[in-house]
């Protein structure tokens, strides 16, 4: 058991959760509010590109999701599958990288 690594992962997961909580709310509320009157993709893009706050918010969102999701996935894999430390860690790192790549492609598209 690597106590310090586990401790850091615990801290990172809690901190990323604190970042995620308000961002998820902002994401949901904004989406529901913005599409009330019916919006086209072009209109959405024109709004996200008009203000730097959206790419910044979603950039932060993706970092928090990648960290939080990967650490949680690692725990689930270790408890529920035959994968142990290294295997679960490798899958978690790959998941984190995938979320970052896909996420930043999406942010690049709306920036």
């Amino acid at each position, binding site marked *: 058991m*690597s*106590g*310090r690594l*586990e*401790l850091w*992962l*615990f801290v990172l997961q809690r901190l990323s959760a604190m970042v995620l909580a308000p961002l998820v709310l902002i994401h949901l509320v904004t989406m529901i509010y913005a599409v009330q009157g019916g919006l086209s993709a072009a209109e959405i893009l024109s709004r996200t590109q008009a203000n730097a706050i959206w790419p910044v918010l979603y950039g932060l969102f993706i970092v928090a999701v990648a960290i939080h999701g990967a650490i949680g996935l690692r725990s689930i894999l270790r*408890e*529920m599958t035959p994968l142990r*430390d290294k295997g679960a860690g490798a899958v978690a790192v790959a998941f984190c990288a995938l979320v970052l790549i896909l996420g930043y492609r999406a942010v690049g598209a709306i920036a």
Partner: protein
Amino acid sequence: MAAAGTEKLLKVDIWRGDDDGYYQSFTVPHETSQTILDVVTYIQRKLDATLSYRFACRVGMCGSCAMTVNGRPRWTCRTHVDSVAEDGYIKIDPLRNFPRVKDLAVDMTVFFDKWRDAKARFVPSEADLDGFAQVDPDSRERKEASAAIECIGCGICYAACDLVSWNPDYLGPAALNRAWTLVNDVRDADPNGHLKAVAGDAGCHACHSQQGCTSHCPKSLSPTASIAGLKRKSFAALLKGAL
């Protein structure tokens, strides 16, 4: 006991053997204020002397008579038949998550080995040699320790914990709860040593806070709260560079 012919009877299924075993059925007269331990003792003394089980004090102090009763871990000496029997039916198994020795007796070695692995023992300091330590009963540390200190080591929390069933290395609620009392003991010379022993994927950070331990603890302790406390304290110690 009720008059002859009208007495109520209990149907009791008891696990016999080790992992490779079977349920044996018994019929036991129902008594007023009868406990599950009374039922097991009746069977062993009157119906089948080969039944193995463990008990000592019979009054909820020693923590040796825990068994699984109708699917839940319980201290059998303080569990009334009337509170758990389902239409006069009782099913008794050995505790979950422990190696089975025979019938209702389990091997508790691994449970207590984990107390050792969690360094859940008091570390005296030189200062103790100079007399009695002064501990303010209203201090936060004393209150935290007091809330967790009445553990009788019955193993019910360990049997109730899903984490233990998923990760056999997990130290378990009782050992972590004990470590928490020591972290809060101002006389203890090595609080960071306790935190170091319990921080990690087999220690307090593995806990999902499902509270199986807390909901089953016969002493109404909350190992979940103790484990959450260990997480907080180890975080603080990490920031201070003490871990």
